[in-house]
């Protein structure tokens, strides 16, 4: 059991107190996927949690994307804050890269 001591100027008394924090299990760390070399000809998934305003953001984003990469395709998807498993599968099948914005 490790113990830490915090002292004020004078040390006549000692109050021993316990740690109230919950232990968090270590989660094995994994790394993100390798990036694409270029976006040309690729399908980009644009995911939003349907919160207001994200649609406007993506409208402009898609326009800029297609201007810069005319061969790019866009797959827009609106769903839950935390993407549902069936949406994950769809996006994984159809998109080569994705932007995930939750408008929060």
């Amino acid at each position: 059991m490790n113990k830490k001591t915090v002292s004020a100027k004078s040390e006549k008394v000692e109050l021993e107190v316990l740690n109230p924090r919950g232990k968090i299990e270590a989660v094995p760390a994994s790394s993100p996927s390798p990036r694409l070399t270029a976006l040309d000809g690729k399908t980009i998934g644009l995911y939003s949690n349907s919160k207001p305003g994200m649609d406007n953001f993506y409208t402009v984003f898609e326009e800029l994307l297609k201007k810069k990469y005319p061969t790019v395709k866009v797959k827009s998807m609106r769903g839950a804050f935390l993407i549902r498993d069936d949406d994950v599968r769809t996006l994984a099948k159809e998109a080569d890269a994705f932007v995930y914005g939750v408008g929060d």
Partner: protein
Amino acid sequence: MAGTVKLEKLGIPGVFMVCNTFADDARSAAADNGMPTVRRREISSAEFYKLRGDVKTIRPLVEGIFDALTNALTSPLTPEEAKPVQDKKGGDDLPAEIAVKAESYRVALEEFNQLYLDKRWGDGLPLIPPTPDALKWMLSGTSRNPYEVLGTINPKHGIATIEKIAINAVMAGAKPQYLPVIIAAMEALADETFDDLHILASAGSFNLLLVVSGPIAEEIGMEAGIGFMGHGWRANNTIGRAIRLSTLNIGHTWPGINDMALTGRLSPHTFYTFSENTELSPWKPYHASRGFRADDSCVTVAPIHGESQLQHFYGGMIGTWTAQGVLDRIVEDLLRGSRRGLFMWGTKGVGKYPGSGGGSMNHMIILFPELALEFKKMGYDQKSLQDEIYKRVSVPYDELNPAEKKSIQTAMELGVVPAERKPVFQAALKPGAMVPLLMSPENLHLFVAGGVPGCAFSFNYYRIPPYNQTALMTRLITGATLTKAGATGGKNVPYGA
């Protein structure tokens, strides 16, 4: 964040776009989800929230971040990103004990309080030092093993053990005889189907109702009379505060960091914690209506909306009242509110489950003892009053607009309407029929609390919460060693409605 990590794990390179207010939240969520180096790009909340209203106003913002977003998809991962450092074990980098030294105990108490608050282990009000002796004293209230794990608490999935809960209960100022109640409430919150995330972290400053029913309430001195939601009642106040501190410390939340409640909650240190007024109620306790034995002692935990939380149905000295009049007001209020939400029944939901975070609601209605007595004279018990209100909170099919009809239809297809309720709505969706605006009579939760005089009011919340399956749970109190009630194990009733 979990969604982004899910997609990354399927091999698609992506980027998580987040407002800067939530940057800390996102960083810590990335680590929690096992991908600390997931690519994130920030936009200014101040600009985004203001400009997102239409395409024209948001254009400069999107232009500003465009390259950063596309680069995040194409610029190769750095060696650090590709080989993220293993996250440290959450609790293990922290000492198990801390010694605070000072010239006197009075000063040590101040030093301890400031230290714990600086670590974000406190709630802003004075804490009782959780010394080993105090912990032992607190644990004397339960026969359960200190190392028993009840589950985990969001957002960081900290492990809730009896011991950690007891440490937080000491800090809250609770007494050992309250501990079994606190444990039962934490069991509900840590239950794997319960949506603790929304109430603990959502921007909407949602809140909790903690209602104790059955004989233990009186044995531990809970207040159910005049002022029952207010100050001055050690049992009510410190049981609620033990839940505040346990969730904060075991789930590792902090306001503005990963608890994003914009205004902060009302009664933030204690939630709304009270007991049913068993002495004056003519009915069996609430939990009996949920399948428990009347003489069981239980805790019911229910998230509630944060704003406008008290819908008054009058009563008591506030005006003259009749039970019929109060009942009419309850029905009117539910009709008005529920009709507004009807078009939302058929939504996919904001979370994983169809209909989550929208659509039909749970209503937690607090009745005062005199009113319950009158209802009883009129022949009602909880069950028949639920049925009566349910029946009256319905509208003629012919008055529904097409969107509302479609919404109910979709809700049946998506399973938002549970299988056993389907025949009801199939029969209702016909010319001449009445369509209920509540999913089931069991979505009306009737508690008897308050003194003489009293007043009736209600809270509400989604029947299906945003991030999990359950938004209201009643748990049996077990393992009590200092009270007659709650001592023996009974049977917990699985969540039904």
